[in-house]
């Protein structure tokens, strides 16, 4: 229950405010239609920052994890300024909330490390935690598409459902080998970089 609450879009870490570069990609006109947007989100999760976050989260869930070192690694892995802002701001909000709710006093950390550090105490299956994290991550991006593309709500939910097998696979791979951090999402990285100088924008990233 606690995990679902913490990873729910209603948990106020502000995930709705970040598009992860998707706003720029849609504005450029390069992503026409639900299929192209679904592929983009799938690639970010399967081969980009989603997978990187999944590995960081899986590493943070391991018993005896060095969360200070993982926080440093997570900061160094940010592929663009706005990626750093996004993971740092949400991680800080998540840490403040969970510190208050559970009486801990953790320092701020990037989001996947903050989540792993707080959730580790719950003793839940790691794959389930990582999958739910990725589901929330994907859900935020789908909402960007619903609000900005625009995409119908039903189409958005269908897209999210379609991403489930990928989410489960990435979660399993990240838990099996959290150190195998890698990304091939060059285009998504460039979109995140380009977004930082976008003049008219709705999203923070």
């Amino acid at each position, binding site marked *: 229950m606690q995990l679902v609450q913490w990873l729910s879009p209603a948990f106020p870490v502000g995930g709705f405010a970040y598009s992860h570069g998707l706003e720029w990609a849609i504005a450029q006109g*390069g992503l026409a239609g639900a299929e192209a947007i679904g592929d983009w989100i799938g690639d970010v999760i399967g081969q980009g920052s989603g997978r990187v976050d999944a590995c960081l989260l899986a590493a943070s869930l391991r018993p005896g994890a060095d969360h200070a070192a993982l926080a440093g690694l997570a*900061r160094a892995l940010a592929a*663009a300024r706005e990626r750093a802002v996004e993971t740092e701001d949400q991680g800080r909000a998540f840490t403040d909330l969970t510190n208050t709710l559970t009486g801990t006093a953790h320092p701020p950390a990037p989001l996947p490390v903050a989540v792993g550090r707080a959730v580790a105490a719950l003793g839940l299956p790691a794959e389930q935690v990582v999958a739910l994290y990725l589901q929330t991550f994907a859900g935020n991006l789908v909402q960007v598409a619903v609000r900005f593309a625009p995409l119908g709500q039903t189409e958005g939910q269908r897209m999210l459902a379609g991403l489930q097998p990928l989410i489960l696979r990435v979660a399993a791979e990240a838990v099996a080998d959290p150190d195998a951090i*890698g990304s*091939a999402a*060059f285009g998504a990285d460039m*979109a995140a*970089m380009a977004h930082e100088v976008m003049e008219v924008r709705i999203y923070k990233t």
Partner: protein
Amino acid sequence: MLDHPSFAPMQRVQGRAAVALVPGAGRPRIGGLAQSGSAKVFLPAVHSAVPEVVFLNTAGGLTGGDRFTCRVDLGAGLRAVATTQTAERGYASAGGQAEVAVTLSLGAGAELHWLPQETILFQGASLARRTRADLTPGARLVLAEMVVLGRAAMGETLESAAFSDRREVWSSGRPVWVDPLVLGARALAPRPALLAGARAFATLALIGPGAEDAAGALRAALPDTVTGAVSGWDGKCLARLTAPDALPLKRAVATLLSILRQGAPLPRVWQI
């Protein structure tokens, strides 16, 4: 010895080369140099106070099981450029992966420009490269890495390759930038979040105090012959470029390097 070692299926090439530069009279001098196997390192005469270190793999390419290591140690306050004599070729692997390790160490206030020529991946290549730079506070690193997927002139489209290319920059024992590219068959699909069908791509980085200030000038100089983007924050300036082929990519990288390096000429061995 075999008469034709390159035809032996499991022949493994090993190469190690390292150079240390220390303060000299007016310009850095070699404080230590080691080379073994297929690796060579030399410093051609240049008409500049900034020495050029050139690494060479005499095996002419890398295939499964090969190990190639190079290292530069740059003393405090010194400046140097390091590069490779030719493009590195990752050939099809008959088994195992080729491994390349690059280690760069910069003393306080040192400035190193690590500008290897491009890496060309052939169909079926299996190559793992790790580049690690350790910076002492005040040091600056300029880095450019270019990768070309297959040979356009031969009509090749790369469909299968396993390439991992991990860059790590550390300062005072903490990671500053970690860039773990992992490119497998799935990542070669021509999709916009990935390489979008580009045949050549590059990553440029400037790491050091105030590096983020370079972002604006780089962005303004991005040629329209490539797709590119720039980001700057927190002592880092990063640029990524993709292009239909190697030549426009190299020209764009040269343009951006000229800005990052205040107009310093490219290493003389660069073929462009």
